[in-house]
């Protein structure tokens, strides 16, 4: 465990430096790493630890000093609430009050209690993790941002947009005209516009903030299946709350289908009901997979430097030029993906909502 920790310290610092300072810094670190530790660099593990949620917000490691922001742990277990700082775990190396962060198995990375028979028991875990904390920060930012934009709209009523207002106006108009109005229709789109706008900007801004590699960015929020699942859940809930008679009729008694496909074996209703859930499921997986994949590729390119650097310093030098170039390219691509995925999620939500409020036509 100790050697792994040592390698992580240097490479993690190097990744940070490499991304934001000069190439020479990284090469220097890689060099140090090679000189000091002839240990293996596990790229898969390293990348995974950057992508998944965590109980503290890791900033950097300098030498053996870990710099991270401790976050509150909130557990409900066997009728009791437990509150403490995640720093009590000492970055996962020790246990506290019988709880520890599982290192392997199905519950890897989660807080567990070890039962008498050695099995892991998972308490109800309401901890403010890195992703939760990031969600709070970006939520506060989004609220502040759009309320201030709303204020400037009120202040400059009837005038041309100015400043931050003019940055967001094309996006707002794009969502209103090309997503909401086109997909839902003139009659109903106004009702869903606030939800769709919030959805789009929440995903888009979280995608962008996720690309910033240091605090307050760096949390892989929209690349977390729980987050995308909740977003898709909101879409599903909005569909259910607003679905009209026609929508439900299409599910349980699909018009234009022969009766023997519905009775006695309700084949079509079953397919329709599965379809109701696959729609948000696909939304959830698409956003999660796209954002996570982008992060993995960028981290993979950076890891290449350390993989090569392990064998020879020159190798690290050489590959760093290529890797950084590719990582920069990927970052640009991810900027595009950040927009496209937010757009696709919102567009599909709008289309599903449009189907839910569609009037019966003969």
């Amino acid at each position, binding site marked *: 465990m100790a050697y792994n920790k040592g390698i992580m310290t240097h490479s993690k610092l190097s990744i940070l430096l490499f991304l934001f300072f000069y190439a020479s810094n990284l090469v220097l670190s890689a060099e140090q790493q090679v000189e000091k530790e002839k240990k293996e660099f596990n790229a898969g593990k390293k990348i*995974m630890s950057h*992508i*998944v*949620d965590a109980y503290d917000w890791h900033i950097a490691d300098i030498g053996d000093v870990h710099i991270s922001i401790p976050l509150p742990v*909130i557990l409900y277990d066997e009728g009791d609430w437990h509150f403490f700082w995640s720093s009590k775990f000492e970055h996962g190396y020790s246990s506290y009050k019988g709880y520890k962060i599982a290192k392997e198995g*199905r*519950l*890897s*990375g*989660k807080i567990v209690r070890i039962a008498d028979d050695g099995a892991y028991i998972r308490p*109800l*875990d*309401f*901890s*403010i*993790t890195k*992703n*939760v904390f990031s*969600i*709070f920060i970006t*939520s506060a930012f*989004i*609220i502040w941002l*759009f*309320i201030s*934009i*709303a*204020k400037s*709209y*009120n202040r400059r*009523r*009837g*005038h041309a947009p100015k400043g931050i207002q003019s940055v967001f*106006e094309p996006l*707002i*108009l794009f969502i*209103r005209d090309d997503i909401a109005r086109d997909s839902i229709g003139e009659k109903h789109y*106004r009702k869903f*516009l*606030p*939800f769709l*706008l*919030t959805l789009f900007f*929440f995903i888009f801004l979280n995608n962008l903030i996720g690309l910033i590699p240091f605090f307050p960015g760096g949390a892989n929020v929209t690349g*977390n*299946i*729980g*987050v995308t*699942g*909740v*977003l898709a*859940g*909101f879409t599903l809930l909005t569909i259910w709350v607003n679905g009209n008679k026609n929508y439900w009729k299409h599910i349980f008694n699909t018009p234009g289908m022969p009766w023997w496909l519905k009775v006695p074996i309700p084949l079509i209703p079953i397919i329709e009901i599965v379809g109701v859930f696959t729609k948000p499921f696909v939304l959830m997986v698409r956003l999660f997979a796209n954002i*996570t994949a982008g992060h993995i590729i960028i981290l993979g390119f950076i890891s290449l430097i350390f993989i090569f650097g392990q064998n020879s310093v020159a190798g690290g030098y050489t590959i760093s030029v290529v890797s950084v170039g590719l990582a920069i390219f990927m970052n640009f691509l991810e900027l595009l993906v950040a927009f496209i995925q937010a757009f696709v999620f919102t567009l599909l939500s709008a289309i599903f909502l449009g189907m839910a409020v569609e009037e019966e036509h003969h």
Partner: protein
Amino acid sequence: MELVNPGIGLIFWMTLAFGVVVFILKKFAWPAITNALAEREESIEEALRAAEITREEMKKLKLDNEELLKEAKEERVTIINEARKIRDKMLDDARARGNEEADRIVESAKQRIQNERNAAIVDIKNEIAEISILIAEKILREKLSDTAAQREYVNKLLKETNLN
């Protein structure tokens, strides 16, 4: 597995946070923004419509002006034509009157010449009569220089004259 195994806590907090964001923005941000946008679009639409109407009016006005100009030109032509006619008529009249006057003058001149000539003829006649008398006197004086002849002649004249 960790990647697709989200914690209940994250889902809970995410639901709460996103719900709050939707609620707050729906209440305080989006209506103001969308209303302001709709209002502005309407006012722009209105302005464009007004501009269109004005342009239409301008076009009409221009057309009217052109019509007016055309009419004015036509009228000018008519006026000029009429003036030309009047002028010609006046000229003709003047010419006719002039000719008449000239004829009249010539006529009166002729008249006067005739009169002068008549007067002259009368004068000449008188002159001739005078001269004739003078001649006759001289002849008579010559003829009646002796008394006998005078007497005879007086007698003759007395005989010729009816005395009653």
